[in-house]
């Protein structure tokens, strides 16, 4: 399905969605964080869209905002889309979890929590996955500094 048709259908699902195609080969949709779970479940259940395969879930630090980028694909209709969601709060960032829509998000959201500190509502068990449980700080944020271990070149 072409990008314009996708844009028309998705535009009707919620308000305040921002679409853009510059700097990327896919259609990018930025969703406000309150509407995330609603829009995502419609992306999966709507039979014209049918995005059932989330192939890459990335945490991201844009400098002032933290967020998550979802790359989605449909196995039957063969189109792809990129969904972005961000939050301004750096002290206590919270987003909705989509693990009940795509089961693969359970592990990927653990990874985002481990490295960026983003908490997810309704996640079955949020815990540190890669680092030791008593690690201090969120390593992949841009303002992470660790003089003891990191030798910076």
């Amino acid at each position, binding site marked *: 399905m072409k990008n314009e048709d996708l844009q028309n259908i998705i535009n009707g699902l919620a308000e305040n969605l921002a679409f853009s195609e510059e700097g990327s080969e896919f259609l990018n949709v930025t969703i406000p964080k309150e509407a995330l779970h609603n829009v995502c479940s419609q992306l999966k259940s709507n039979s014209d869209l049918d995005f059932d395969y989330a192939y890459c879930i990335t945490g991201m630090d844009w400098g002032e905002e933290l967020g998550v980028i979802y790359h989605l694909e449909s196995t039957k209709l063969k189109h792809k889309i990129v969904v972005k969601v961000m939050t301004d709060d750096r002290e206590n960032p919270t987003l909705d979890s989509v693990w009940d829509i795509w089961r693969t998000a359970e592990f990927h959201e653990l990874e985002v929590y481990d490295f960026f500190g983003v908490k997810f509502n309704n996640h079955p068990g949020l815990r540190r996955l890669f*680092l*030791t449980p008593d690690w201090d700080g969120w*390593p992949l944020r841009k303002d*992470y500094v*660790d003089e003891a*271990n*990191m*030798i*910076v*070149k």
Partner: protein
Amino acid sequence: MGVDNKKRYVSQLEAEGLNEVVPDDFPGKIIPGGNGGNIVVTTLDSVINWGRKNSLWSLYFGTSCCAIEMMQTGAARNDYSRFGFEVARASARQADLIIIAGTIVNKMAPVLRRLYDQMAEPRYVIAMGACAISGGPFYYNSYSVVKGADHVIPVDVYVPGCPPRPEALLEGMIMLQKKIETENMSKKVNPIDGFDEGK
């Protein structure tokens, strides 16, 4: 019948040109005594060291890419069991050598220390690959890599390479055998003493 023709004495075998009973590098002399006994003349140090170095059994400890080269060294083309490293044991209590093949990370360091403590003395350590020697390609800009396995346990032999060739690992193992030959039981120094305080 077989009983009467059985060769019992080393002197009998040597007379017939069969010298395979005693290996070439056995440290000491064998003097055939009378009545079926032989007398072995050697020093206790050299014969115990000879026994130890020719049968070092290593522990399965491969964390990352160097483990593949270690497995390749144990496979058919380069075979480390020619030199006595016959079996790789899965339990630390039954092994006398750890070959640290791979990167040691902050989360793995206590596990390595616990494995080393579980081994019975005498125990030896070979650090294989650049990551185990000094952090390797992960030295700069990494917050979770321990810059060298000798921050955690004392190391005997370092084998450089990324990953080292099987021949390089074999040379490291033979170097360890030469080091064991020169050990002295009365003046034995345990490398773990004083390690934690920073020797």
